[in-house]
């Protein structure tokens, strides 16, 4: 594949909304998890929440009122990513920039407000202004409206691994000549009904911070990707290059964790094949480790199958931010930022106390070892992806 450059990153996350602040928080072992047991209907548990979010600097208050929370996250992250890439307001990108956004929960806030009114009062009492934002593409659409982007605009729904497919699609838009660059990422909004629902079906096992079990997350992360040669030609700062993306899946019940080392290994091998590099060329990995022991065991098995004894310097962020589509995009963004600063944050925790070879967990911030960086993504329902950065 033609290498892609990551030239800008925009983040709204439980660890903050400035890339340097997010990296500093990860380096210091901070966590963006808050107890949600006091929230109405939320049951007990923890979640990665965005606190003290102010869209004001980017979205004027009158316009912000029309946007749901997820859309505000997305517009702010997109604005920051394009600004960081030096592309904000570029007229040539009005029709030459693709938008591909993944989500697990966009629209859930307006949806529950609408349904609460419908059930508690009547269908006629349901607020019409909420309905348009119940669609999952509302955040990506608001990005196009607020930033005047008329190029292809797509939203994909799947678990954390959706960022892998979003990168594939963004790349295809570029290779097909439909656009010259793409804004790729994911957005999510925490919702008490979803917290309850996930708890009820046993997806959020482990209700104690640091204990076993996945936690929900929210926020938005956007990456600007463009052909590496084009980025260099315009003098852009290249944070990292994306050399390969692999996507695979496992069959099974769609609402369960489906640990499948074979599917993850297939995704990793697909990414390596695209990158045209042997496994030995990878020196570090961002684990998908999410606190679900069976998933982490499958991940360890897949890494051993592909990389043998390694070693791979390993880190991971979900222990600090939780898991949703947005955590996958955040993982890729943090990996790109770490490539640029030549330093990795410590592993933020998961379920397994120790990992077998080739994984060498980082207990403290460390130098980026030689070789490419692999980012692993997986989530609910059997979806797996792998991304290789250099």
């Amino acid at each position, binding site marked *: 594949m033609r290498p892609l450059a990551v030239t800008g990153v925009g983040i709204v996350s439980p660890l903050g909304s400035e890339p340097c602040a997010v990296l500093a928080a990860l380096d210091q072992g901070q966590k963006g998890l808050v107890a949600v047991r006091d929230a109405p*209907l939320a049951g007990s548990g923890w979640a990665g929440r965005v606190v003290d979010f102010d869209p004001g600097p980017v979205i004027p208050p009158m316009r912000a009122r*029309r946007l749901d929370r997820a859309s505000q996250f997305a517009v702010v992250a997109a604005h920051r990513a394009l600004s960081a890439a030096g592309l904000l307001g570029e007229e040539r990108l009005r*029709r030459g920039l693709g938008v591909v956004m993944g989500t697990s929960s966009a629209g859930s806030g307006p*949806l*529950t407000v*609408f*349904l609460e009114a*419908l*059930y508690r009062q*009547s*269908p*006629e009492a*349901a607020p*019409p202004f909420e*309905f*348009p*934002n*119940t*669609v*999952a*593409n*509302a955040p990506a*659409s*608001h990005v*196009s*409206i607020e*930033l005047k*982007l*008329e*190029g292809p*605009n*797509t*939203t*994909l*729904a*799947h*678990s954390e691994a959706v960022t892998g497919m979003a990168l*594939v*699609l963004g790349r*295809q838009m570029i*290779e*097909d000549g*439909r656009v010259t660059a793409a804004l790729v990422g994911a957005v999510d909004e925490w919702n008490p*009904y979803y917290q*309850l*629902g996930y708890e*009820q*079906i046993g997806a959020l096992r482990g209700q104690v911070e640091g204990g076993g079990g996945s936690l929900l997350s929210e926020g938005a992360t956007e990456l600007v990707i463009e052909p590496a040669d084009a980025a260099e030609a315009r003098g852009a700062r290249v944070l990292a290059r994306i050399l390969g993306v692999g*996507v*695979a*899946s*496992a*069959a099974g*019940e*769609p*609402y369960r964790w489906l640990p499948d080392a074979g599917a993850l290994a*297939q995704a990793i091998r697909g990414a390596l094949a695209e990158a045209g590099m042997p496994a030995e060329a990878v020196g570090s990995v961002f684990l998908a480790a999410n606190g679900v022991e069976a998933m982490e065991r499958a991940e360890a098995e897949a890494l051993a199958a592909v990389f043998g004894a390694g070693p791979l310097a390993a880190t991971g962020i979900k222990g600090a931010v939780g898991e949703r589509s947005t955590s996958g995009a955040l993982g890729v963004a943090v990996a790109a930022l770490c490539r640029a600063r030549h330093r990795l944050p410590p592993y933020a925790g998961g379920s397994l106390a120790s990992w077998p070879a080739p994984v060498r967990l980082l207990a403290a911030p460390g130098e980026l070892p030689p070789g490419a960086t692999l980012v692993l993504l997986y989530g609910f*329902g*059997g*979806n797996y992806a792998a991304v290789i950065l250099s």
Partner: protein
Amino acid sequence: MPSFSDCPIVVTGLGAVTAIGAGREAFWQGLIEGKSGIRPLELFDPAAYRTQTAAWIDEAALDLSFLGPRDRQRTSRADRFALAATREAIADAGLELGSLPPERLAVVLGSGAGGLIEAEEWFGKVALSGRLGQVREILAHGPDLVTNRVASWLGARGIRSTVVTACSSSTLSVGQAADLLRAGLADVVVTGGSDSLARLTYGGFNSLRAVDPDPCRPFDRERKGLSVGEGAGILVLEREVDARRRGARWYCRVAGYGSTSDAYHMTAPEPSGAAGARALTSALESAGIDASAVDYVNAHGTATPHNDRAEAAALHHVFGARAARLPTSSIKSMIGHCLCSAGAVEAVATCLTVQRGVLPPTLRWESPDPECPLDVVPNVAREQEVRVALSSSFAFGGNSACLVLSAE
């Protein structure tokens, strides 16, 4: 990535579940007979809503015998529509599931509400009483569950993707499925979409005063809004070279597609039609086909006053004066607006139109609208050879998409 002309993509299998027929042939027969599936809504009590009709599906008409009782209980309506249409499309393509490398079988579907109608029961119980509903109700929620369910039933281990761009979801899903084949990331892609009616969507469009209390009348001067529908359309796509090698026959080519954003408003179409036209132009450009070669347009044609007017304007942007003579029908007059599966169901209809040379009509068209000067194939199907057809979708958020389907 090779162009569409360098790597032709063909449709080798079709499946459909609609309010006018369960199964591809029943659907097609309904289309050319001008059958309407819009009727009093019985899926839930509509008495408190502004309108009471919809194009809904009686599940008793579906052959779901291939699902065991446990699967019947654990799946949503949208899952079952999708599974029934997938089973039909795979058989139609002549594919033996066990003979396909599962890593090379991809599933790309469009959905939106998905199993929301079942999940609403759960939301309702929590909202009204604070008590939890049944686990099986909440399990239905999430558009990606439909894709996961279909992929798992197929035993697929390749790429999965769920496109959620509201009413253009499953038009885009077909285009993106073709991209995967062109890029060599899959050998067979099961694509299309499935969506079921839900209180949210029914109540939502009613709250916007966008629903006609009577069956809808696309492009008619007296139109008052859409009729909400549901259903599934599934297409099996392969590279033509692969289909030819295995001796498969095909309906038509997916010759290209377009995807653009209006960047205008969350619900209102850009009124000049220029924004909508860009999706059509982009699709034709990707196909390398001139607008003069287009024989037929399967329109979005929702029957809301603003949308139909903007769509007619878009067609005039692309085709000039010829737009008034170019056959352009809206099958939503028969199957309602199937929302996130609308594009897929309409793509299935358009594939059959290209193969069979019969244009489905626009029902209930009586009064010409000077602001929609189109040949809408009024009320009666028409025989006509179709070499190149467009199937277009315009969605909330300004997500516009268009497929180019061609005989060769």
